[in-house]
């Protein structure tokens, strides 16, 4: 990433030339020194507080400091750093160019960091690269970040990324992709999610039940009825009970009646309420 810092710093110096901040506190009180101290403390909360305080602060040293945070191991730190750059679209565009390249060819960590930056800054131009990168062998962390990026952008052209991720070998990736599906703008069908109701992973099944219910995917009814009475996972049964209420089919009455006596308190009232809402 050093080349990015160099590039930004050069751009700032040669092109803008206005970044050199006063060492004294400026504006709302943010400063490079405070950011540096927060980074030194290692605290996510301290870093977040100082980056937020420097929302509009123009300072060359800040650019370097915050650029480094885009590679922090903690998502919360990367997120707030990307937000800071999203407030500076000129710099963001420069970084996005290089992050897009790293998304295409970088290692797991680089691809993860790149996806988080591009997603949080809504770099829509990176969507074609995201669509290709989700098929790369870069590990679950990077792929979850790619899904997270698509969810944050919520752009319809990110949907293919989620479809690919739903078939990933990692249940964490599949669950994240299913979860993101309903939040894409203009998404009007959950048919692609129905198959995930039979996923071997309980979290994926639970997420899929939520999505098909929220989006009123009628073709999921039979599988939801199976889940609500027989799934081993209480969350999956609960979500299936909720989803059946959303679908509202009288055909679900027997399954939901059975679920009202579920051994888990997570399920019983949900089933009763869904039962009451059937047509």
């Amino acid at each position, binding site marked *: 990433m050093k080349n990015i810092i160099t590039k930004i710093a050069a*751009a700032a110096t040669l*092109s*803008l*030339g*206005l*970044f*050199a*901040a*006063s060492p004294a506190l*400026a*504006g709302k009180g*943010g400063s490079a020194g405070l950011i540096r101290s*927060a980074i030194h*403390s290692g*605290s*996510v*909360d*301290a870093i*977040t*507080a*100082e980056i*937020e305080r420097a929302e*509009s*602060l*123009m*300072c060359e040293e800040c650019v370097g400091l915050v650029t480094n945070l885009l590679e922090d191991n903690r998502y919360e730190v990367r997120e*707030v750093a990307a937000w800071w750059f999203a*407030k*500076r*679209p*000129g*710099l963001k565009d420069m970084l996005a160019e290089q992050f897009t390249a790293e998304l295409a060819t970088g290692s797991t960590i680089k691809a993860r960091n790149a996806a988080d930056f591009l997603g949080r800054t*809504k770099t*829509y*131009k990176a969507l*074609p690269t995201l669509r290709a990168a989700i098929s790369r062998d870069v590990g679950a962390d990077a792929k979850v970040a790619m899904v997270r990026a698509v969810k944050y*952008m*919520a*752009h319809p*052209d990110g949907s293919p990324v989620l479809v690919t991720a739903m078939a990933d070998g990692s249940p964490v990736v599949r*669950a994240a992709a299913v*979860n993101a599906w*309903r*939040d894409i*703008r203009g998404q009007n069908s959950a048919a692609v999610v129905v198959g995930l109701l039979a996923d071997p992973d309980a979290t994926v099944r*639970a*997420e899929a039940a*939520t999505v098909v219910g*929220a989006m009123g995917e009628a073709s999921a009814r039979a599988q939801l009825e199976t889940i609500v009475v027989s799934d081993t996972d209480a*969350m999956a049964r*609960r*979500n299936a009970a*909720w989803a059946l209420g959303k679908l509202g089919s009288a055909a679900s009455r027997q399954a939901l009646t059975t679920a009202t006596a579920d051994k*888990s*308190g*997570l399920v019983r*009232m949900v089933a*009763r*309420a869904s039962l*009451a809402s059937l047509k």
Partner: protein
Amino acid sequence: MKTTLALGLSLVTLTGGVGCGGDDSSGPLGNVDSLIILQRPKRNDMGDIFQYTSYVPKTPAGANARLVKLEPPTADGTQTTICCDNIPGFENVDISGYDISFDAKQIVFAGKLSANTKYGLFLLTLSDGSVEQIPTDPGRDYNSPIFLPGDKIMFTTNAIVEPGAPQHVDEYERGTTLQLGRIGTDGSGEELGPRNLSHRTFPTLVSDGRVMFTQWDHLGTANAGHLMFANQDMQALREGFGKEGTSPSNSTLKAQEIAPGRFVAIATSRNRTIQAGALLDIRLGEVVTTDGDVTAAEKQTEQNATYKELTPGVPMDMTPSAETVGRYYDAFPLNAKAKPDLVVSWADGPVESGVLGSAGLEANFGVFLLDTANNQRRPILDDPAMWDIFPRPLQTRTAPPVTGSATDTNLGGKTMIGSMDVYKSSLKTFDAGSIYGVRVSEGFSSEEGFPEMFGTTMFEGMATLGVAPVRADGSWLATVPANVPLRVQTIDKFGLASFSEPVWFSGRAGESRVCGGCHESRSETVNINPGVTDAFQIGPTPMYGDVVRENRKSMTDFSRDKIMGVAWNKVLQPMFDAKCISCHNGTPGAANPSYTVTDPMTGTAVTWTFDLRGTQIPAAFAELGGDPAFTASYLSMAGLDMQAIEEGDLMVSGTYKVYLNPEDARGSLAITKLNPPQQFPTQNASVRAFPGAGHMAAVGGPDLTPDEYYALILAADNGVSFYARENNPGLDRY
């Protein structure tokens, strides 16, 4: 069962007479058998007052969040965990808030069971310890539940009332906004309230049946959290406290009713304060003392609202609190004395997330009895590994009446807004007959696919829905989309705003939000009889009330009655290109004044020259101008991001002018110089807003059309943004 008392007594002041843990039967807690207290593992990721997703399931020693009962409510009382030990599925629960039912037999709480689930609502039955989940959307968060009369529960949620629409996002703390909702205690009939553009949080039930909550008001430069009222059905929103600069703090939250018209609440800054601050005693009406109890129920108006600081020395901004001063997380009144006794949650030391984070610490909230008459705290419970918060007496209470609002099915899912007489305002005095109509705009944030900033002016996205004529008796009515943030402006016959409501409001489907005037009494029922008004006789002005969000835009017709968003490059640039850039083209001179931005520390400088061309701004101004996509014409008219200038300690010299002022077309240089024609009721180029012929006539150029003038006025009055739905880059294909 266990008893926990781990207080540094040096941190508290003990009163004489009744000692900590002593016989308190005659004290303010004398009629309280036990307290319910929420214990959460300590954390430091809740600096912002709207943070609701924090999840820390266990302390380093492995203890969960839990609800405990302290009986008697003294420091040597017995502490019993009442939820949620030994309940399958709750091994990693975190609990964010709760409420006790009116009969004190049940508790509703917001809990999150694992890292990959959301906060949901749960109902605990105290007699047998059973817990059932209330059926809410598993993919959305539900927080801050309170019981309502009529077997209902109110909550805050990021679930979305508008089908297919994204929830609004908060551009600062970057969270998805919370809105109000309610559901039956049996899980039936979930309803989601109309949406604010930012958060609504911490609802509390009031003895008159209304609900008070904190609303974040962010419209342009307004940025503060105020107390609002709503009916139990989330209709009839009214201002409560804090607007128009009446609060001593940026944010007021976690209100609890002391007596009718009187509340205790936290006063603090929005961020870095762990949702904690000083305590205010807020009196909304005329103060009446009866047998030592103080109420303020009558004549609740902005003029009559007062407050008293109950905790002198405790910061109301984000300043780190001092040792022994600390901050208060919440307070619950035990009586209505002039200086009430409160059971509070308080933490010592610098309760500020940045300072605490740097030191590797977390705030340690414990429960105390606060004697506000003598500013003395007596310790009740403090587990050093936990936040001990929201102490509440476990006792029955009187349920207020079920309140609701009329819903007009004839509105067909739309909302009707209006007022009986727009000239009746406590905020501005209007000349008789000066108002032509009320312009209504819809607000949205970046969730529709926009970049972080709509322009350099800090305003949100807007779409103008229309103008409702003000009738002879001052009345006006309009039907608008339900559940969306709305902003109203009074305008004159030139289309120039004479007053802009500084906040967003919204209404439910079928709701008639017809006010007496602007800012009438908060507590009195306004006898609205719109049937007697001229506006009702004529009928409401239709304003896209039945048009879905994605179609509330005008892509090609920018005429006065069709224009919605002022997409700078699509609406205004063609006008500049055709009629302005032959002179205003960036060539330094009388027609194109220049200014220079200098960094006094380095001496480096960049110069800008007035330019109405549609070229992208150069890199040198990318930061000062906000976005490389912005055009030279935008930067010339809107000016620089002055927050960036200020925080960068930069100097601006030369002829620096802002030609379009946000929400002030009438006072904008470009508008006064151009001198726009009459717009309403009919466009008439021979009648001008200001004396003289105007700039175009003076220079011999082709005049702008009335529609072009109106677009320019709208750009200013709607905040001088670059982006609108009509040029949303999130709608392009990639």
